[in-house]
């Protein structure tokens, strides 16, 4: 590790606590109290369950760093997964279905991007609108029924494993590394930081703010399409309510992970920890057979506590 990156360390350390502390404490509690928790099987289980949320939370981090928001992800995921299923049923080709899902995702991402960047309608409203559109289309396409009968080959994408590691986890890992490279090692990533941090700087550098914004939302849609694949594989079917509200979980995970809504102050690793923390909490509470109403409250508590700790650490 070279001298410079050490110089950066204190800053990341100052950020870690909120989510990391919570994650460590939770894991410790559950490991001590619930025998099954620490077992490799269960850890694999937790990670696998976290993958779909992670696929949404990664691009959500990028979007939030542009001082934006994407409320449509859950609904887009749902619609994409329905299109995927329908396409597969019609064509019998999983590959075609997969690309259909990606296409749907990117289209909604592009729509969001254009509405926000070109018509400059605030992201919250734009995506609230497209959320409605995607949800409506899902209902219209299925009339509320779930779409079933898709080939097993798709289900294997979720249930399969490679060298003992569940496929979804591998996919998520790739997605994470990809997003990391995108954010920290490409021009686009640098411009995302700049967009949230100082729009003027970006304009002065002769970079099109619109371009960056649109790409960010397309990324969001695309990843929602990927998530749709996992969701469909997981349910071995598509259902018009499957992804409802997931965007809020994703946003919460990002915030718990220490990414702030201002000044392009983002932290991708934090998002990963945030997602896992939520997964650990839900899993642990189930293993402890904690009463469901209490589980609901605990999720709220997790969010608030994590941000409270960050608030204590925050530089004024």
């Amino acid at each position, binding site marked *: 590790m070279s001298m410079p990156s050490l110089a950066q360390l204190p800053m990341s350390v100052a950020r870690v606590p909120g989510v990391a502390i919570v994650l460590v404490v939770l894991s410790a509690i559950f490991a001590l109290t619930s025998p099954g928790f620490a077992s490799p099987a269960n850890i694999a289980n937790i990670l696998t369950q976290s993958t779909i949320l992670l696929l949404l939370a990664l691009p959500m981090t990028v979007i939030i760093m542009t001082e934006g928001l994407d409320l449509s992800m859950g609904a887009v995921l749902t619609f994409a997964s329905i299109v995927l299923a329908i396409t597969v049923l019609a064509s019998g080709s999983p590959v075609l279905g997969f690309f259909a899902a990606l296409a749907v995702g990117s289209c909604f991402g592009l729509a969001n991007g254009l509405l926000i960047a070109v018509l400059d309608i605030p992201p919250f409203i734009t995506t609230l609108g497209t959320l409605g559109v995607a949800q409506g289309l899902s209902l219209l396409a299925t009339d509320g029924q779930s779409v079933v009968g898709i080939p097993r080959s798709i289900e294997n994408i979720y249930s399969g494993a490679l060298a003992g590691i569940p496929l979804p986890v591998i996919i998520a890992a790739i997605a994470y590394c990809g997003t990391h490279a995108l954010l920290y090692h490409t021009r686009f990533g*640098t411009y995302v930081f700049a967009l949230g941090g*100082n729009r003027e700087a970006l304009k002065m550098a002769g970079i099109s703010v619109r371009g960056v914004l649109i790409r960010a939302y397309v990324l969001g849609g695309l990843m929602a399409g990927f998530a749709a694949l996992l969701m469909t594989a997981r349910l071995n079917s598509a259902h018009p309510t499957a992804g409802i509200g997931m965007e809020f979980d994703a946003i919460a995970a990002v915030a718990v992970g220490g990414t702030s809504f201002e000044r392009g102050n983002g932290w991708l690793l934090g998002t990963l920890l945030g997602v896992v923390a939520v997964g650990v909490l839900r899993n642990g509470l189930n293993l402890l057979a904690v009463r469901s109403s209490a589980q609901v409250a605990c999720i709220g508590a997790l969010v608030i506590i994590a941000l409270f700790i960050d608030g204590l650490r925050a530089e004024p």
Partner: protein
Amino acid sequence: MTVAPLFELQGISKEFPGIKALDDVSLEIRAGEVHMLVGENGAGKSTLMKVLCGAYRADRGSFFHNGKQVAISDPAAAREFGIAVIFQDFTLVPYLDIAQNIFLGRELSGRVPGLIDRRGIYTEARRVLDMIGFDVNPRTLVHRLGVAQQQMVEIAKALSQQARILVMDEPTAALSEREIERLFAIVARLKQSGVAIIYISHRLSEVFALGDRITVLRDGRKIASLLPGATTADQLVTLMVGRSVDSTYSRPSRPAPGEVVLDVRNLAGPSGLAGITLNVRAGEIVGLSGLVGSGRTEVARAIFGADRAITGEIRLFGERTGGSAEDSVRRGMALIPENRKTQGLALARSVGDNIVLAGLRRLFPSGMFLPARAMKAARSIIEKLRIATPTPRRPVATLSGGNQQKVVLGKWLNAGARFFIFDEPTRGIDVGAKAEIFRLLDGLVHNGAAVLMISSEQIEIVRICDRAYVMRDKRIVGELSGNELTEANIVRLGTHQ
């Protein structure tokens, strides 16, 4: 002078809704020359520069590079001609590091297609920083740097572009004496290497110290282009303002100061302040001088109660203050902050809304808000301060810097404040408006108000203030008054020797 200018602007015009920002302006930029661009705020200096660097598109006019006509459609195009700008309001990204900021938009490609060569950027940045003798780790995130350091990064950013034409928009505004000297050295070196420099400044001293040629803008028009040798400060000011004002505003005789209004005893705070003890009497203007970062603004905020966790004793009119801005305002304290856009005004709201904001409690003791009464109050302030706005309903964002500053002051007059803290009241304000602001200050103290004024320009302190405290390293290192109050003494106290 038969040499074709390196770059030439001809008949540039630019209009914004309601305002003619530039009207048929021409400018010759010659290699190895420092071209001073002066004029009041709203004269069109910054607009002209934004046009030059492609941030704005001119409505009319043409550009010539080495004599042949060219087009500047966007910043990228401008960079083609080696045009680089150091802007007044920083164009840095807080959560990118210094190197990334320096190369924003010009990232070096790495071996892997699509990826950036981070290492290359750092070595390159290191080189540029050494060039200006700025010793800092290029991986430091910019939001951890102070104003002056950020200014240096701005300069590095511009230099790294191998600029042939370097535009500096008030580069010294945030710099301390030492850093200014270093900057001048850099400017001289660049000049030697044949770089053309356009230098915008409000400080006449700089204009004459550095300039090879001076161009004066007023109301978007080019008024004159002259050589420093062939003109005097007063002539220049007259040209800028269009009427003759004496730029050398000097303090009129004031009645002997009254009782102590503000009494601060060994104030200390988290920002490093320690043992701050000072007082201000009714009817006097007390200066607070010192280098940038010496803690002047922190003192102001501490006294005003803007920052929490302050120890020590602050008495206003004999009573201890509650240590909150709200309490200070209720006791008749006023803060005219350094950055009016981010701290002084609600830009989206109207002039009237801004003027009444601080005085709401006084204007409407019942808590019932009466628009008519608010309007009336606003109008009277607008008249009293001669704020240039057709109506109080106009969004304050559309006013010029000087007028915005007046709105901030008006807010406090309306609130009936009797102790005023001015933090850099003349920052980014043109000569004409400066004199006017000083007159207003004087008017305040004549009516028995007390004023604490922070300024980086010693000359202002000397001319305006009855007394002055000098700060260094978050401490007050001396108090000057009478004929001890000279620029030399301020500098001596303010800097280590």
